[in-house]
């Protein structure tokens, strides 16, 4: 028995769903951000797995897209943490339940 694409797909699905649980269940904004990182990594695993198991050996699309995902993830973390710091200074909390200024 050898390694197949479906193994990586199931692993990535598990990682993505753990990240989804973290986004939905956590109350600290920083923890929500960390769960989003988990979801992004699950997507990266899927992209690289598809690119590694493809039949033609000249397609690099999967790996290049992963480079862009990592770039955007780095930008996202920087911006999100700046917003969280600002929020903490203004409201004294990073609990996502208490940030309800726009609640109708």
């Amino acid at each position: 028995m050898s390694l197949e694409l479906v193994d990586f797909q199931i692993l990535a699905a598990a990682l993505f769903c753990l990240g989804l649980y973290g986004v939905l269940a956590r109350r600290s904004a920083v923890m929500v951000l960390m769960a989003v990182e988990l979801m992004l990594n699950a997507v990266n695993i899927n992209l690289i797995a598809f690119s590694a198991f493809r039949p033609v050996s000249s397609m690099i699309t999967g790996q290049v897209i992963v480079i862009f995902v990592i770039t955007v993830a780095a930008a996202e973390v920087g911006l999100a943490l700046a917003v969280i710091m600002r929020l903490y200074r203004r409201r004294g909390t990073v609990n996502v339940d208490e940030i309800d200024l726009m609640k109708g």
Partner: protein
Amino acid sequence: MGLVLFYILGGITIVAALGVVTTRNIVYGALFLLVSLMGVAGLFVVLFAEFLALVQLLIYGGAIIIVILFALMLTRETDFSIATEHRRWPVAAVVSLALFGLLASSAINDSSLYNSDRRSGIGIEELGTGLFENWAVPFEIASIVLLVALIGAIVIGRSGDEEDGGQA
């Protein structure tokens, strides 16, 4: 060999990710995230994507975790050591499990379409050539995205006494 490595690294990744979303201590959560992301880097090596494994180590291990730890230190939250989860966390667990069932079953159903046990890697030269030839425009746009994010993070994160002081 690949299978053994896959199970070890996958196990590390999943267990550490479980630690991220369940731990009470938020700093432990960040360290669990580091372990999980390093497990993902190992999986990239199993998939013959050595360059991306290196990038993962440098960017996630070197930069993102440090920034998250900085943010944790600067916004120290004592109340979160007791109550980390929502009251509705069982709903979140059910939704996540349902999505996992859906994704896993569809992956298994379609496995005959895509599966082969033949893996092959891409050399760094090929990757660089593709990145700078076919993907040159997205590459430039990514550099603009990074610049905008850098400036935006500085503008948002600076102390800004004149606005905050008035209403605080």
